[in-house]
């Protein structure tokens, strides 16, 4: 149990962030993280001792999120971009930030789910390409092509927003 606390507890903030980025609803996301942690607790002894606790925890969370999103889609209560509560994700943009955080979050949300997962796991959660492949149960080549497509699409999306002016200028 002690190694579980050491290995898993520091991951919880990131797991929350990933869940909330996917589900956009803070309460639903925390429900999911709670489910995930209960499974982690319950299956800790079944985990391969040489396994990677981080990719294992993200795998459990990701699969729960996929199930939840499928349930939502079946029930027809899926949030659309138009009525997604902004507050669920984006805090008020920091005044000094030259980058339009809301825009980038909104553009990320418009990505197809499979591209979104890859982008978030790699760019935000700092998983390696190999870890991401394991979490999503796809070949690493697929990870790379989804990542490339996600970034390409973000560029297109952001090109349609006024923030582009800033982005082009910086650097």
């Amino acid at each position, binding site marked *: *149990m002690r190694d*579980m*606390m050491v290995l*898993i*507890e520091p991951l*919880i*903030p*990131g797991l*929350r*962030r990933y869940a*909330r*980025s996917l589900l956009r609803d803070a309460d639903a996301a*925390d429900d999911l*993280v*709670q*489910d995930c*942690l*209960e499974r982690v*607790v*319950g299956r800790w*002894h*079944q985990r391969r001792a040489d396994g990677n606790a981080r990719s294992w925890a993200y*795998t459990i969370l990701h*699969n*729960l999120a*996929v*199930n939840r999103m499928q349930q939502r889609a079946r029930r027809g209560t899926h949030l659309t971009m138009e009525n997604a509560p902004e507050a669920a*994700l*984006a*805090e008020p*943009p*920091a005044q000094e*930030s030259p*980058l*339009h*955080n*809301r825009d*980038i*979050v909104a*553009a*990320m949300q418009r990505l197809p789910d499979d591209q979104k997962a890859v*982008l978030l796991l*790699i*760019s*935000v959660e700092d998983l*390696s*390409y190999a870890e991401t492949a394991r979490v999503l*149960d796809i070949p690493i080549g697929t990870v*790379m092509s989804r*990542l*490339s497509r996600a*970034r390409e699409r*973000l*560029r297109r999306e*952001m090109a349609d927003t006024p923030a582009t002016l800033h*982005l*082009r200028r*910086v*650097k």
Partner: protein
Amino acid sequence: MTQRPITEDDLQAYVDEALDPERRAAVAAFLTSNPEIEERVAMDLHHRRALREALAPVAKEPLPARLNLARLAEERGKSRFTGWTSVAAALALMLAGGAGGWSLRLASERPAAGIGSLAQEAADSYAVFAPDLGRPVEIGASDEAQLVRWASRRLDRAVKVPNLSAAGYTFLGGRVVPTPHGPAALYMYDNGSGTRLVMLTRNMAIDKNAPMATDDRGAVATVSWARDGLGYSLVGPLSPRHLHSIADQARAQSSGIS
């Protein structure tokens, strides 16, 4: 001075700072001489940073009490053996909710007994317990001996949990569930990426020995058989053929039990 050509993967890894120093320098040199691609990569870098900044505050929020890992571990330890009431509740729900449709279907298409009935019971159990996120099983795999004692007592014969790990399915645990033909032992398995299988086993009044019968029910398939008065039905969201190959492994193991 030939050099490995720069690939799209290199450009992505450059953005993620995942290249070794040598390769990173090669990509940087490439970008200097390709301004259009350099601009593209610069945009990607900015988007990456902006997204990280935008989402960072979520990870800095204080954790709510329900995400306290130590407490979750402690609660699990306490609640493990106090779930009898949940079986009763599930039974009541199944009876109350399903009574109308149940008798109607019994009269028409539901096989009333035998292997067909067992397969239906297994599919019903799968539908109730496999999607259960909180408590899919009553007794976890770590207490397999306890589960086996419970099931053997209720079925009034020795039962054993089939091992499906060769097929990639880990035993999660199980419970005793009600069927119209008496108690049945339910075992649940998981392949680690969300696909679950359920094995239901109970005493057979008829079809005491039956060859494997496969049934494609759309979302799930069942493979059922009986040997020496004990019936088995394996359910899962797999193709009938795939499920059949897993059922073969389970049956090979069951041959040793009287």
